[in-house]
């Protein structure tokens, strides 16, 4: 069969090289073309899976065979969903994220790099690859903040890097422990999952703790979340779309792998659920104190990822697939929201809700997008978030009983504050902010593109969910 996953990986590499070599004004075109091709390929994969009812696929190439290191890919329903989500977000980012078209070569090269990381990470079949692509993603994001960000970018990017490097150091340590404690010294995720019993129990506990903290930093969960709001405040619009849209999903994806792989996680699940629920409420309360729209959206990521973690700790298929669906929904929604916020900043030169006023008068499309994004964020029916909420909380109800419903309460606070924001800075009052610029067709297409998929997966959830088999 045609090696579609490696082909997919080659495209952004080619794009990266072309952008580096060709003229700067061509870079956006190349980036859009490359992300569009990857999007088309993932769409093809998705349609293929839906028609055949089978999402499993694998490819492998040996590299250092004596150590079991090589490129090996595998695709199942969960990686496929996340891969598809990331290809949508990347295409929207490349097309519409850069309002000012500032430093297009650097921005687009980093997008290509990030696309390589995302394709590789979500399809990796061994931990060695997982680690490599993880770090590529982190480095790409570091430069996105450090090079393309706003005034305080250096401080924020270093903070981001310290947290994320700690995460990848722990990840590497855990991966090496796994490698040395498995009898045949393997990185292969499927092999490790089926032979996990061969690792001594106390070592398993240590590995679990290391991996959990690594993924927890990336998701992020309380108390290791401090890097995220600052990173978002300083990152460019494109950086923010990719950071919350895709990078935080690395951790979520890792958590799903981890909980599927190590039975030791089951004994910790209820404590982790408690942490996740706490993190959700904690982030909501922090969100209620923010006045920068971008920081508000950033904190909503922590809220949502807390709910994702909560779903994973239910340890049943409903909770897990709910978490995946929530990541799908949240990735698209948060990208849409950051795109809208980027437009607001571009249009009015301002992001503070105390200064923005009556934006609906001069920026109808952007304001309505923000409203629709808010609806999708709090799980409005017919948006993908609704399906995710149903699945996650049915799963947690089965595992934790009534307590499993509590994090839903955070959505009330989130929704109320979002409507407060809309009221304060978008609707109403005679005074209104004057726009200093106009947004182009590309941004409108970006809105429509992301919204289309948010509602597609909300109206036709069976497309993805009927693929799930046990």
């Amino acid at each position: 069969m045609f090696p579609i996953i490696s082909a997919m990986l080659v495209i952004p590499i080619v794009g990266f090289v072309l952008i580096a070599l060709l003229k700067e004004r061509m870079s956006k075109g190349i980036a859009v073309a490359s992300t569009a091709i990857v999007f088309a390929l993932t769409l093809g994969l998705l349609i293929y899976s839906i028609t055949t009812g089978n999402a499993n696929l694998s490819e492998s190439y040996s590299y250092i065979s004596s150590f079991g290191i090589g490129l090996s890919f595998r695709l199942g329903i969960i990686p496929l969903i996340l891969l598809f989500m990331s290809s949508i977000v990347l295409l929207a980012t490349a097309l519409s994220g850069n309002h000012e078209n500032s430093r297009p070569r650097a921005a687009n090269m980093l997008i290509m790099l990030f696309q390589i990381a995302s394709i590789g990470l979500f399809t990796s079949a061994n931990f060695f690859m997982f680690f490599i692509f993880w770090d590529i993603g982190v480095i790409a994001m570091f430069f996105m903040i450090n090079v393309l960000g706003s005034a305080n970018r250096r401080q924020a990017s270093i903070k981001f890097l310290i947290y994320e490097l700690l995460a990848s150091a722990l990840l590497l340590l855990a991966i090496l422990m796994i490698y040395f404690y498995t009898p045949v010294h393997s990185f292969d995720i499927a092999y490790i999952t089926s032979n996990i019993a061969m690792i001594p129990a106390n070592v398993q506990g240590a590995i679990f703790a290391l991996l959990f903290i690594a993924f927890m930093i990336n998701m992020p969960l309380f108390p290791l979340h401090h890097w995220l709001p600052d990173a978002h405040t300083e990152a460019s619009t494109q950086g923010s779309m990719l950071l919350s849209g895709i990078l935080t999903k690395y951790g979520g994806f890792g958590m799903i792998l981890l909980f599927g792989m190590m039975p030791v996680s089951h004994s910790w699940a209820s404590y982790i659920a408690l942490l996740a629920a706490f993190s959700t409420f904690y982030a909501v309360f922090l969100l209620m104190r923010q006045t920068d729209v971008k920081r508000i959206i950033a904190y909503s990521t922590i809220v949502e990822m807390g709910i994702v973690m909560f779903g994973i700790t239910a340890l049943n298929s409903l909770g897990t697939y709910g978490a995946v669906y929530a990541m799908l929904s949240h990735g698209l929604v948060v990208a849409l929201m950051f795109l809208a916020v980027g437009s607001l900043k571009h249009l009015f030169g301002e992001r503070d809700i105390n200064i923005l006023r009556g934006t609906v008068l001069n920026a109808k499309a952007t304001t309505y997008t923000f409203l629709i994004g808010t609806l999708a964020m709090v799980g409005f029916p017919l948006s993908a978030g609704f399906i995710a909420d149903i699945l996650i909380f049915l799963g947690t109800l089965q595992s934790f009983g009534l307590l499993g419903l509590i994090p839903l309460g955070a959505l009330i606070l989130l929704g109320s504050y979002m409507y407060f924001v809309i009221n304060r800075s978008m609707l109403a009052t005679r005074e209104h902010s004057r726009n200093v610029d106009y947004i182009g067709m590309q941004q409108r297409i970006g809105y429509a593109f992301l919204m289309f998929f948010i509602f597609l997966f909300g109206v036709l959830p069976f497309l993805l969910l009927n693929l799930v088999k046990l």
Partner: protein
Amino acid sequence: MVLPIFTVVLPLVVAAFLSLIVKGKPARYIALAGSLVSLGMVALLLSITSNAPISWFSLPGLSVMLTASTQPINLLLLQLIAAITPLIFIYSIGFMDVPSEQGRYYFEICLFAAAMMLFAIAGDFITMLIGWELLGVTSYLLIGFWYKKERPPLAARKAITTIIIGDVLMLMAALLLWNSYGTFSFASIISQGAAPLLPMAMVLVALAAFTKSAQFPFHEWLPDAMEGPTPVSAFLHSSTMVKAGIFLIMVLLPLFIAANMLPMLLIIGVITALIGVTNALAENHIKRVLAYSTIEDLGLMTVALGLGSLPAALTLFVVQTFYKALLFMSAGSIMRANNNEESITNLFVPSTSKALIIATIIGVLSLAGIFPLSGFFGKAGIESASNSIIVYAILSVIGFASSIYIFRWFLIPLRKQAQKRGVLANFRTLPKPMLAATYITAALVVYASLLYLGVLPWLSLTPAPIPIAAAAAETTITLIGLSVAYVAYMRLRLKKMSEAHRAAYLALYNNLAVNAAYSLIARLFNAIAWVVEGIDRNIYRAFRTGAISPILFARLLRRMEDGQANAYVAAFILGTLLLLIILVV
């Protein structure tokens, strides 16, 4: 051809998006056509549609179906909506004369009607939730329709905040019931009877229903929702939105009985009805009086359900639709003729516009419950259903007070003579569609009275029995109320309450206290957020210190190798001395 029953909402959805595309004036006719097609479809419903469930998605261990229910009660609500929608659109043709906003207006209102229709035929929690939440969001858009003004966005936010609470609670209840029963379908949950977590789930359902149906303590958004355009108020208060919560309680009444929750409904209903009546007595805004009156009516329906009398609740449910739509339509006409004046003390109605007055009188008498107008059957039915003398007494007081406030509402604008010539002319040139819709609705109020005895048997319910004595008592009380109001407002010409009556005013007009309580709760959450923010800052500071400490340690170590010979010598001597001391001691 057999279509899924959900297609009844399609004409309105199509009309919604078409009117968004075409914008401007044609939108009104598209919307009207859509609503008429949908009315036709409802009429033909049984022959062309099937209510087989549609599978939405399934995973191992969960399959979610979209189920329609074609029980008589669902069809009844469906017909009410289908009948009111075209009237609202006809009224809007006259009312909505801002060409630039028409596309948006009809888009939102069509979607609103479609959501309510979907809700009306929902046979399971998921389908119901789709309609339920769509209803909430479209009502947010409609209440905040005039978003350029100052108050409508605030009112819209109050509504959506209340509604979000309801949405989340309802989702919780649905999931909880699935966990106990393994299904989302109303029918199969009801057939399975009680389960361990049923009371918990029903409390959640009841609270969610209270948010939509403006029951205490979630009622305060409804009067504020008057900031929306008048046709929207007429629509929202008659057959849609506020009826959703009550309707859901009706559908799930067997579960409420199984969970022993009727007393709770009764108590909340009584409180709500009392709040509605007292505020309506003190309120001067023409539309807000009607809003409080809606709160009272909804409270009475909850009381009827709390008494376990579905027929009584249903009767008021049906008749209230028509008289409330009628009163709002008249109020809209009166306001427009008075150049959008809002306070009843400043409004006036000339005795020359007889047709409008007669239509309004029909609505007023129906609301007060004068035999044989339809309101009578609603109110007397509930009073006769009461199971204890206390409940009966409270209901009688409420009935008495409601006849006072509605006559007050009606008489104060009548007693003045026109001061400005323009207003008289305005009454003569009121848009024809507005008046036409008002008169048709007035006819429907009368018709509903005749229909009353025909409707309930069709629902396979026996009409609530109204003993002659109860009917006589109800009528007497209403007539006394009318006389009191007549004497007070036409003879004594009472004006606004003065400072001397401030205590009485505050007791009646208790929405101020409710609003204060709301902002107290909001402030409480803000205080928690403030505390959390402080904690968060300190946690980060602790991390920072922890992370920096190796660097501080390194700085200490660096001193040892900085090449300062005299420091080395000093350290050497000190060290030797220390060593000596240790050795000696």
